[in-house]
């Protein structure tokens, strides 16, 4: 398979050497059409960075390449493992160049092509292209000198040729983040048992307790974990805390307020999808909950009420959905049907041969 791909790549790159001849047509990257599951809405199209087969492949190489970090030991995949639905299993990682513990839990990367209302837990980043500069440059993450990165990639003919094919220009940091964004938009998970159930496909069987969980989820959780994507891409205070006066670390504890400076946004964080949720523990923006049982316990009885707490999580002035143990177990059983093994074992999303 790898050999076949390499031959394919070489055949694509060959015309580049003869491009100066006026009779040759310049090789062009081929459009890449996202494979959108039948039960999904249409994905937003990023007009500024149209997907191409070669752009996605380049982004995949870069995503797994530790050369992207300052010490050449950390890649994007160091904190976004494919087998954990592109999360890292840690509450707060210290895997960055500095070794300092981060303030935020590494989010899972699932269905990013639909994430059209801000990235990061507080939504300060507007698109995957701009977002990538954050982890690339941050001293506690990849701490890469962007000029050095350009030089390092330029030293490798395979990258030089691929960048030129995809972007028609020499390597620069903008193209690195564009390629990464292209690959991330192909991280589509829509082939879980639940999806097969919804699409009435073979293998789409759900047990009674899972069906009961689905019904309970629809009543209690789906106002935020909405639709086929299981997220409304919006920001809510889910009652983890009630005091947001700590403005240390540039307001990192204040939720979306640090982006909007609107007091109504204190303690609000982006709704993550619950797809593959059993693969992406621990939970919440700071990874404070180790297990899914703790999460259900929180939503049932642990919600702290403050001025910005989501109204749907407060019943008669008391925080929490007041779910019984049996109801919590049923919801967890349902959440298990959202695990998509074809997503985490998809070779096209895994580590490629690096230049």
């Amino acid at each position, binding site marked *: 398979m790898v050999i076949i791909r390499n031959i394919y790549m070489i055949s694509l790159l060959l015309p580049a050497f003869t491009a100066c001849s*006026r009779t040759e047509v*310049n090789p*062009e990257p081929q*459009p890449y059409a996202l494979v959108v599951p039948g039960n999904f809405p249409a994905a937003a199209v990023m*007009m*500024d*960075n*149209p997907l*191409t087969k070669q752009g996605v492949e380049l982004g995949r190489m870069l995503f797994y390449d530790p050369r992207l970090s*300052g010490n050449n030991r950390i890649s994007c995949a160091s904190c976004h493992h494919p087998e954990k639905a592109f999360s890292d299993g840690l509450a707060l990682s210290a895997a960055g160049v500095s070794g300092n513990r981060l303030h935020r839990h590494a989010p899972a990367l699932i269905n990013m092509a639909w994430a059209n209302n801000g990235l*990061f837990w*507080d939504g*300060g*980043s*507007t*698109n995957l*292209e*701009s*977002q990538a*500069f*954050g982890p690339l*440059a*941050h*001293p506690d993450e990849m*701490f*890469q*000198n*962007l*000029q*050095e990165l350009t030089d390092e990639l330029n030293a490798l003919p395979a990258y030089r040729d691929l960048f030129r094919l995809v*972007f*028609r*220009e020499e390597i*620069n*940091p*903008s*193209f690195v*983040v*564009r390629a990464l*964004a292209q690959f991330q938009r192909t991280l589509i998970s829509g082939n879980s048992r639940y999806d097969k159930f919804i699409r009435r496909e073979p293998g789409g069987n759900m047990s009674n307790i899972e069906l009961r969980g689905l019904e309970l989820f629809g009543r209690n959780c789906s106002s935020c974990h909405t639709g086929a994507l299981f997220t409304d891409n919006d920001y809510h205070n889910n009652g983890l805390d009630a005091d947001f006066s700590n403005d240390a670390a*540039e*307001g990192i504890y204040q939720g979306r307020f*640090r*982006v909007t*400076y609107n007091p109504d946004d204190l303690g609000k964080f982006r709704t993550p999808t619950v797809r593959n949720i059993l693969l992406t523990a621990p939970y919440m923006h700071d990874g404070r909950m180790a297990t899914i049982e703790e999460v259900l316990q929180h939503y049932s009885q642990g919600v702290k009420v403050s001025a910005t707490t989501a109204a749907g999580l407060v019943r008669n002035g008391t925080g929490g959905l007041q779910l019984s143990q049996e109801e919590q177990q049923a919801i967890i059983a349902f959440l298990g049907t959202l695990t998509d093994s074809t997503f985490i074992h998809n070779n096209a999303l895994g580590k490629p041969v690096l230049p």
Partner: protein
Amino acid sequence: MLTLPKNTCFGGQDTFYPLLKRTMKHIFTFALITATSFLAACSKDNDPIAEYAGQASVTFDAKVGGEDFSLGKAFTIEGKTYTFTQLRYWVSNISFTNEKGEIYKVPASYYLIEENSKINTQDGAYEYPARKRETISLSNIPAGNYKSITFSIGVDSVYNKNMSLQAGELSQLNGMTNISWMWHTSYIFSSLKGSMTADGATKNIIVETGLNTNYRTLTVDFTAPVRISTAKTTAVNFTVDVEKIIDGVDLTATPVIGAGQPAAMTRVADNYKQGAIVLQTASSK
């Protein structure tokens, strides 16, 4: 032989191909103008030398009140002593309006006006050299009599919301964005840094603006129309008064102004638009 790419997929957002197309268009326009003026020249007996698209320089001369701005020099503003280490801001989307009301937009016009000593960017990983740049040189402006200039301080939302789009001097490598601002997806629109001494206490000051809401556009009328063409040397000179940039902002109470101080930041952005930048001369010789 130049061949234009057929791939419209990339034509809309890449910087190079539109530039190429634009250049081709300019060549075409130029040829048309040449042909037209040649024909016109034939029909007249004593025609003056034909005039083509010309150049203009636009200068932003930094001041502190009546004095010349200078790094490391002590200035007194409202009884406090200031010493500056940096003044930088984006001048973008420059256009000229002629007497007929026709607008010429300078393509890819994102210029960094600055006076700073060496800057360590990315927490010291990269060094940006000391630089003083107050003048922008523009060329290929269609010949004409222009009555006003329009420009903005900051970066428009199209480029500011996607930092992988680049045009003109926009870059991640010149220190006009950093980790804090990347959280917000914004270039630093303007930056004034230094120290302030009041009542014997010295504080470092950082006055930054950014975010789409603080993008400001100025249109400045010339006192008399200014000719731009190959036959002329055209210079537009502004002064930029640092005293006015920080007008109405209490740096004693808030020595650091940035995204976390939205009201003060908006005041500074407004100051750039209203009062700090003043036209001194616009001449054509």
